[in-house]
């Protein structure tokens, strides 16, 4: 039998440095996995080609009334929408990894660890936002091809806004994922979250041309504000004030994170 003294157990107390390391650890894991799976990066390349080159250039002749798009070329008009689509796909994909983690057991390793639940959520949301922003930057590289000239300042602003939009969308994704027990497939999320949010965001048409009954859905859709903010920077016009866009996204993120925290605590 051992004769050495057992160490005294200390009561666990909150410490910022510890929680920061947990957030970093969760972020790092997600990022490593993302980086190894290059197929996800290609999504950032494939989507703009599909939407800008194929859909946009074919639809452009159909869209004859340029006054609705503020006399801006249609392809340039939908460019912020295509960035928005990239962001929402990427964020939902990474939020859905929570379902995989639950299904394949890794979530237990995280939940059984002495870490506060909010750090787990922040780590996860930061991870999703980083991945989405990287894919958004790839999409951004298509800007010169459609004749859109962006100053370095504008590019920086766009990256910041893309990160903010991704942050808001991932927090929504985490809420959705924490209520899904089995992996119902990305198809479900795609059909019932990604596509409706995209089509109700004003990404590919001006929201003013949407019928009256759709307006409330557009007004509560975080992606509407995200696309609007990106449009302010890329082509200098928007439906809402830029300040409102930013305020809505920030408020949405806080509310969703609180809901996610509440759901995680019940888990």
């Amino acid at each position, binding site marked *: 039998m051992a004769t050495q003294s057992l160490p005294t157990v200390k009561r666990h107390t909150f410490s910022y440095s510890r929680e920061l390391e947990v957030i970093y*650890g969760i972020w790092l894991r997600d990022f490593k996995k993302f980086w190894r799976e290059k197929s996800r990066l290609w999504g950032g390349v494939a989507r703009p080609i599909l939407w800008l080159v194929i859909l946009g250039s074919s639809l452009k002749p159909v869209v004859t009334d340029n006054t609705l798009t503020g006399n801006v070329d249609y392809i340039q008009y939908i460019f912020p929408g295509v960035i928005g689509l990239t962001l929402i796909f990427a964020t939902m994909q990474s939020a859905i990894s929570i379902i995989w983690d639950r299904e394949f057991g890794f979530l237990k390793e995280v939940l059984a660890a002495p870490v506060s639940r909010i750090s787990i959520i922040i780590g996860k949301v930061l991870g999703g936002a980083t991945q989405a922003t990287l894919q958004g930057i790839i999409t951004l590289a298509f800007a010169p091809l459609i004749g859109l000239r962006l100053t370095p300042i504008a590019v920086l602003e766009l990256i910041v806004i893309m990160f903010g939009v991704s942050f808001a969308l991932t927090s929504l994704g985490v809420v959705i994922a924490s209520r899904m027990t089995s992996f119902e497939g990305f198809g479900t999320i795609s059909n019932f979250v990604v596509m409706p949010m995209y089509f109700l965001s004003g990404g590919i048409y001006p929201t003013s041309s949407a019928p009256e009954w759709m307006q409330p859905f557009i007004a509560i859709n975080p992606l509407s504000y995200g696309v609007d903010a990106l449009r302010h920077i890329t082509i200098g016009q928007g439906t809402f004030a830029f300040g409102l866009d930013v305020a809505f996204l920030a408020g949405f993120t806080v509310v969703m994170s609180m809901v996610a925290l509440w759901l995680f605590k019940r888990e």
Partner: protein
Amino acid sequence: MTTMTEAPIRADAVLATGKPAAGVPIIQVDHLTKKFEDFTAVNDISFEVKEGEIFGFLGPNGAGKSTTIKTLCTLLQPSGGHIRVGGFDVQDDPDTVRSMIGIVFQDNSLDSDLTAQENMEFHCMVYHIPRAERAERIKRLLDLMELTEFKDRRVKTFSGGMRRRLEIARGLLHEPRLLVLDEPTVGLDPQTRNYIWQYVRDLRQVHHTAIFMTTHYMDEAENCDRIAIIDKGQIVALDTPAELKKMVGDDQIELTTRDNARVVQVIAEKYQVPVEEREGHVVIQVPSAESFAPKLLAELPTLTGGVTIETLHIRRPTLEDVFLKLTGRTIREEEGAKDQRKLNLRRLGRI
């Protein structure tokens, strides 16, 4: 920021005896109940596990073992009663409890897209292991589990035994006071099972780590210092394996004959010993099978008018018999019911 509070963990006991830990409970379960809507998975159980003890939870799948473990590890909230680990309540101080426990879950909990080394590093980060010690601890545990040469391979390429060894290595990284093993050797080959058991015993010997494990393998339960037999959410017996087996007491003789019913009747009348027919065998309980068997072989054909014994098998009491005596069923019979109950739990409790 880090104000450390002294734990109320029986400092008195340590001082009084001069020997730390011996006899001090690391786990105190007090009238624990866990319900999932109208399904009661754990029904008012109480027990204690001492420091340095190997404590086993034996029972069929769905008996409430994993639910107890999840509540102990703070993954589920008790519906009633209390659990204290090292003196800390799982509901009041979940993070303190979490930091004291190393867990090896029944199902995989590794990230199979990461390498073994990366899984270990992640664990170090979330358990706040001092940075300076990380590399050395990881190396030592991977060495111990003979995984060093595979450390940079992704876990998805690992066999079941390698994964389990890696999970044990990971569970020990933060030097837990209590190692919780949920069905640790299910699906492993005998060699790996023996290896893991040898390691678990060493661990207790050297570090005085308490081990709380669940199993539905009878032979495995024999390795425990004490066993609680759990059935349908309740503890039906709790003692050392030797004491539990005394409950069944006698040796068993299992016979097959052409006319089991007749043989049962004759043995009951003539020898006045407990006898019954079970799964096609005549099962007789006697204090000493060595002396009873020859007598039976010689006398039975005459007594029954020509029914001969076709096979004869002598068994010492096992924990399986204890389970049978206490519940009226074998653990094997329970295996069929397991999936349904697990399904219920999954649906209700999101396990």
